[in-house]
């Protein structure tokens, strides 16, 4: 991932996190420890650019995101909490906004619905060290993001 892509990804992710989930993005400090389970969401897109975006985070971030978005206290049972669903929607919004930032508002992109699943702690640790991912924190929770694309 080149520096220009990293900057763009960071900017879009910061904006979307603030507007969608009222969360603030920052650089991740090494001290931040997390607990499994971890969720990986990915989606592909095609059009002027073809590629794939992936977001990985602990499920605790997804739950915090839902609480922020819906304005409920942690542990509330009034609304069903679906961590994977929140991360998929966050990725979906990120991806749409990233493509506009990259290509402008004229081209039409086809976005595939996001898919998600739980990953093992070993895979999470590998992703955190992978230079293809940008690792940030959202309100102290770590989040890893990667976007790979090529122009058609």
């Amino acid at each position: 991932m080149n520096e220009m892509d990293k900057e763009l990804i960071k900017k879009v992710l910061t904006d979307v996190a603030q507007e969608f989930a009222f969360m603030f993005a920052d650089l991740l400090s090494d001290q931040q420890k997390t607990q499994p389970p971890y969720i990986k969401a990915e989606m592909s897109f095609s059009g002027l650019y073809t590629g794939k975006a992936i977001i990985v985070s602990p499920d605790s971030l997804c739950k915090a995101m839902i609480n922020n978005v819906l304005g409920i206290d942690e542990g509330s049972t009034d609304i069903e909490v679906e961590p994977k669903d929140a991360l998929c929607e966050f990725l979906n919004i990120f991806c749409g906004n990233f493509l506009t930032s990259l290509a402008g508002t004229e081209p039409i992109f086809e976005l595939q619905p996001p898919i998600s699943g739980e990953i093992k702690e070993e895979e999470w640790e590998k992703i955190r060290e992978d230079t293809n991912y940008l690792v940030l924190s959202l309100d102290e929770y770590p989040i890893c993001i990667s976007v790979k694309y090529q122009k058609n």
Partner: protein
Amino acid sequence: MSINILVVDDSKTVRAVIEKTLLLSGIEIGNIFHAGNGKEALEVLKNNWIDLLLTDINMPVMNGVELINEMSQDELLKTIPIAIVSTEGSQTRVEELKSKGVKAYLRKPFTPESLKNLIIELLGVSENE
């Protein structure tokens, strides 16, 4: 007059956010129906009176564009006001959809205020005091 709204989005989180926004908006809401894709939406439309449809575009099974195309071919369904609530950023596509009868477009992420204003503008309803 209370209005019935159908919210079509594959994300339960988004449907919950929209529902909560509608209920807090001060607009007199009748029923809020949910559908996870276009096919489910058509089933709801078959069995219920809907005053306004809010739909995402990017969904599995039947996406928002396919849903709008289906509705545009039905004499009754094509009269229902449709607003797109989506991450779609292409003005080219938005213009295409407007030519098929879409009345408004709200890009994600949206604020509760912008959703409320969109409904007030589309339906000409007012807030309860």
